[in-house]
């Protein structure tokens, strides 16, 4: 899904080039610091994040509420369940 206006995030984390085995565990760790219903912005330079983050979202029920593609990175907005 894509949004012209990304949702307001309560926290943001830049995970750089973390991928495959690192990306979603790092998201999980950061998400633990938020309250239910709050939104975490995840910034990633990893192209495969567009596959991995939605899968992790479906598995865990932490909803991916927005994605913003930029030239060299993407921003994912995840609402903690």
């Amino acid at each position: 899904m894509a949004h012209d206006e990304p949702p307001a995030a309560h926290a943001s984390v830049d995970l750089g080039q973390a991928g495959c085995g690192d990306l979603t565990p790092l998201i999980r760790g950061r998400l633990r610091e938020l309250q239910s219903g709050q939104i975490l912005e995840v910034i990633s330079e990893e192209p495969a994040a567009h596959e991995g983050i939605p899968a992790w979202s479906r598995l865990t029920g932490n909803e991916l509420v927005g994605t913003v593609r930029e030239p060299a990175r993407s921003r994912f907005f995840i609402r903690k369940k």
Partner: protein
Amino acid sequence: MAKILVNATHGNEDPERATLPFVVGNVAATADQEAVVLLTIEGVRLATCGYAEGIHKEGFAPLKDVIRQFLDNGGQLWACGACTKPRGIGEADLIPGAKIVTAANVVEFMAAGASPLSF
């Protein structure tokens, strides 16, 4: 929550094969799945104290760190009893969080619906 069984068959003779099961297991554990890494054959050495020190495949985190993350995130580490015994490995040799199991434990876990993946 699904059951995920990741089988590790290699030790330090193949650092990539030794590391990948824990990478996948950690992803499963942090995706709210019931994750077990099952060590068999030379892989059982990975559960022993100090063995993972120095195993570091380029492109991955050091194996001892990945194992620690896997366990801290709720993953279970099982070592095949039929493989530990001939190698002289007992419970006292294992890192905290690891345990020696029998084939019946593995079969029970799979009969309950665990999806297997082997490296």
